[in-house]
């Protein structure tokens, strides 16, 4: 591309004047062409494409984590609890919410929608789960919360302090939440909860425990620890 450009300009100047192999005036234009092209591709790759890649969805109703966390005794586990067999319940189901919200408690618009649309009609709220992983991933909340004594915040961030739910950004190709890949397009992360990719699991597993050399193939964690 660049050499063609050069030949064309050279050819034209060559017709007008006596043949001069390099016109000093064409140099800056070629450079400008490259810089513009680079800038354009940077804009496409770093800001337009990520915007196209994710579609924005809003949650069915807004939820105030901060307010609820102040009302309950048992922290996150008051609503996101563990079952007796050690499995994790994930997002609360309607029955849990109706324990308190059988009728309107406050004056917020969202609660009114919740009671009228979901409690009265006995429909589950179709929450969009930011941290939903692909089907091939096995993750044990038990092992991390009870075994490693980790805080919810380490992976999920200070979501308990949020007063409203952020929009759910769905990757149009994979169908997964943006919270899995992270917001920083360059891949840098400041906090442990910025991303939930395999590398992030692996990073922590390499650092924080002594049992992570069970794989014959890799000398690290066996694949079956997190895959199913």
């Amino acid at each position, binding site marked *: 591309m660049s050499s063609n450009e050069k030949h064309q300009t050279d050819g034209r100047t060559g017709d007008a004047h006596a043949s001069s192999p390099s016109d000093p005036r064409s140099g800056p234009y070629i450079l400008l062409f490259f810089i513009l092209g680079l800038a354009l591709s940077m804009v496409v790759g770093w800001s337009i494409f990520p915007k196209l890649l994710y579609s924005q969805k809003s949650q069915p109703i807004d939820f105030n984590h901060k307010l609820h966390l102040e009302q309950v005794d048992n922290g996150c586990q008051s609503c996101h609890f563990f079952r007796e067999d050690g499995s994790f319940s994930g997002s609360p189901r309607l029955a849990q919410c109706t324990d308190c919200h059988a009728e309107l408690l406050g004056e917020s618009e969202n609660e009114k929608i919740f009671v009228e649309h979901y409690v009265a009609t006995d429909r589950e709220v179709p929450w969009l789960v930011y941290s939903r992983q692909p089907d091939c991933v096995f993750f044990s909340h038990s092992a991390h919360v*009870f*075994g490693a004594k980790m805080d919810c915040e380490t992976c999920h961030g200070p979501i308990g302090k949020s007063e409203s739910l952020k929009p759910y950004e769905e990757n149009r190709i994979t169908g997964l939440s943006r919270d899995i890949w992270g917001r920083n397009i360059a891949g840098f992360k400041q906090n442990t909860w910025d991303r939930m990719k395999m590398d992030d699991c692996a990073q922590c597993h390499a650092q924080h425990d002594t049992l992570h050399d069970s794989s*014959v193939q890799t000398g690290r964690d*066996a694949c079956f620890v997190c895959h199913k």
Partner: protein
Amino acid sequence: MKQTQTQTQHRPKRYGMAIDVDKCTGCGSCMVACFSENNVPFKQDETDKLLSITWLRVYKISNNEKFPNTEVAFIPRPCQHCAGQHEGHSPCVSVCPATATDYSVETGIVSQIYTRCFGCRYCMAACPYHARYFNWWDPVWPAGMEKSLSPNVSPRMRGVVEKCSFCFHRYQQARDKAYAEGRREIREEEYQTACTQACPAGAIVFGDLNNPEHLVHQIVKPDIEHHYRSHNPRAFRLLERLGTNTKVYYLSSRDWVRKSGDNYLPGEPVGLQGKADTHG
């Protein structure tokens, strides 16, 4: 043998199976249980058994004698979870170019990671037991059936190899429960494979071969110094002479059944002691 941190802290687990061939009636309950537990796909036309996917398959063998001396026996064959002569040197694991199959020294289970497998089928060629199966097509579930699939086992896509995992997800679930109760160790009855529980004859016993309290250890009496060869005179392993050091043991009082576990020459005595040793 690979020296691991796990081994210095506590003895690694070595999950294995003892299948009593004399008790097996060939009913196929284990196959059905395995199918439904592990979301094993089926095809619209299952008549071509060469393409069927059966993580656990019951083979029928016969002594080929004339009536009235005819006898048959059934050999249920899950993945044998070979350890090889050097712990972890399973035929499939050592040939996989994608690190899609792996041997865990902590549990002795040979894993298969479908999202890493690119379907070269080298492992299938290496496996002496035909325990590995290739997905030629994406599974098509009859309408509504996808709702009855187990959420704990991910369904396989086309183009990957799959095999029995000793119901590893049940191990994970058992560990979840243990963690919730503040334990690190799981009990024998907490982790049992689907086929073990489904066998109406009680022919399949599953547990930790390294744990003397587990029934499977008491039945097999493995000789740890000699590649876990069994001290039980009724026990044999499939193709033991290959040195695959499998974790599935078969039991039979009948000579011809024990003999059929390996490819013996006509007239060759059964159970050549020390044969595997010359190997490793």
